[in-house]
């Protein structure tokens, strides 16, 4: 599939709009009720998924170009999900959450958030944590936008959102050129310090779901 440069720019522009819209609209917070914590302790089918954290770049895969001039990147959703699940296993249930390694494709619906019914179609029943981060545009020499990750707990029987929260952190400065993100995802751009801030987001989200009902 060949992409004309105008297509790339259009895609980038669309991405910016989606990212902005995602930041603006997808931030509804749902505090976990005591029953939610009880469900997390008792439910036998809990999965955790992340949406694609690969990056888009200005360099189409088969363009023959080696350098990209920009990249669309978000938070490293896989890393944050894995840290979150590890924390959940440590603090709540040692074997209670199945972490799905394959990324999900984000089909955005209301409030520019991934449509949860696709989770229901795959996993049918139980509870599902999902981790989604809108991408934002980065060009070398320009400031790096804050990274934001949205997390939800969805009851698959009726698609009720039992908990939702978000976390924002500073991913700057990026340590690699945009093309590094093409195969390596956002983590290829992040410095160790920025990855540490991403990990702190996982802890923030974990605290939110486990302690939210006490606040």
């Amino acid at each position, binding site marked *: *599939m060949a992409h*004309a440069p105008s297509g790339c720019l259009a895609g980038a522009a669309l991405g910016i709009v989606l990212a902005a819209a995602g930041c603006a609209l997808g931030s509804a917070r749902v505090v976990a009720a005591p029953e939610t914590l009880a469900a997390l302790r008792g439910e036998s089918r809990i999965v955790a998924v992340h949406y694609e954290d690969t990056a888009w770049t200005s360099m189409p*895969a*088969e363009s023959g170009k080696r350098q990209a001039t920009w990249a669309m990147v978000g938070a490293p959703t896989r890393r944050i999900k894995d840290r979150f699940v590890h924390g959940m296993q440590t603090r709540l249930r040692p074997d209670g959450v199945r972490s799905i390694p394959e990324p999900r*494709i984000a*089909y955005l619906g209301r409030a520019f958030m991934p449509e949860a019914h696709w989770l229901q*179609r*795959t996993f049918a029943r139980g509870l599902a944590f999902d981790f989604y981060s809108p991408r934002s545009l980065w060009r070398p020499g320009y400031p790096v936008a804050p990274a934001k990750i949205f997390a939800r707990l969805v009851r698959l029987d009726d698609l009720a959102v039992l908990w939702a929260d978000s976390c924002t952190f500073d991913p700057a400065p990026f340590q690699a050129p945009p093309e590094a993100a093409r195969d390596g995802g956002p983590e290829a751009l992040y410095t160790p310090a920025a990855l540490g801030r991403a990990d702190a987001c996982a802890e923030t989200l974990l605290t939110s779901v486990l302690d939210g009902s006490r606040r």
Partner: protein
Amino acid sequence: MRRLGLLSAVLVLTQGCALLGVQAISRPALEAGGPHRMDDEGWVALARARIAVAARNDRATAAFIGPAPFVPLPIFPLPPSALETRRPEATFWVDVAIDPEGEDFVFDPADVRLNLGETADLRPVRMRGPASVIRGAGRRHTSALCGGDEAARPISDVALTQLACVSLEFDMVPPAPDVPFTVSVRGLSDRGTPVEVPTVRFTKGHRATLDALP
């Protein structure tokens, strides 16, 4: 006369233009009388899955532009190539979108066959995906089903746990839309059991699009 021309130009510039495009496409369908049905968006319902197949051989056949003061009036012809935003593919790509239920579907694209005229049983040589499926308004101008722009790679099995799309490359120049052909999607299995997919027949169709220009 000059004033009229100026007035026309001002109308066009201040009220926008309309662009009408006509594409020749290969439209998918199923054999009549079979047990399966294809919906208006090209999806065929199977046991625990849906599948759609699309051919990437769209060709712009006509284009018109004109003012849109109150109603669109695309009356001035343009060369059809004005609507082509991508360079023509050297090989023929067919997109297969699969919407599985559950986590146990596997798709082996090596078993897909393209049958075109005297050319029997062409098999794909490379693939892309799984990628996202283009839906809704994104398909207004294209028959393509698969999003993404990852590099082509050798054919291999794909585990499918979500709505996803695989593009298959056939080693031939894309056929003109008026050339009929069929695609047989084999190699789909659910929990190890082969899933029967009806052969999809492609025949010439048209798509018209009307766009507003600033």
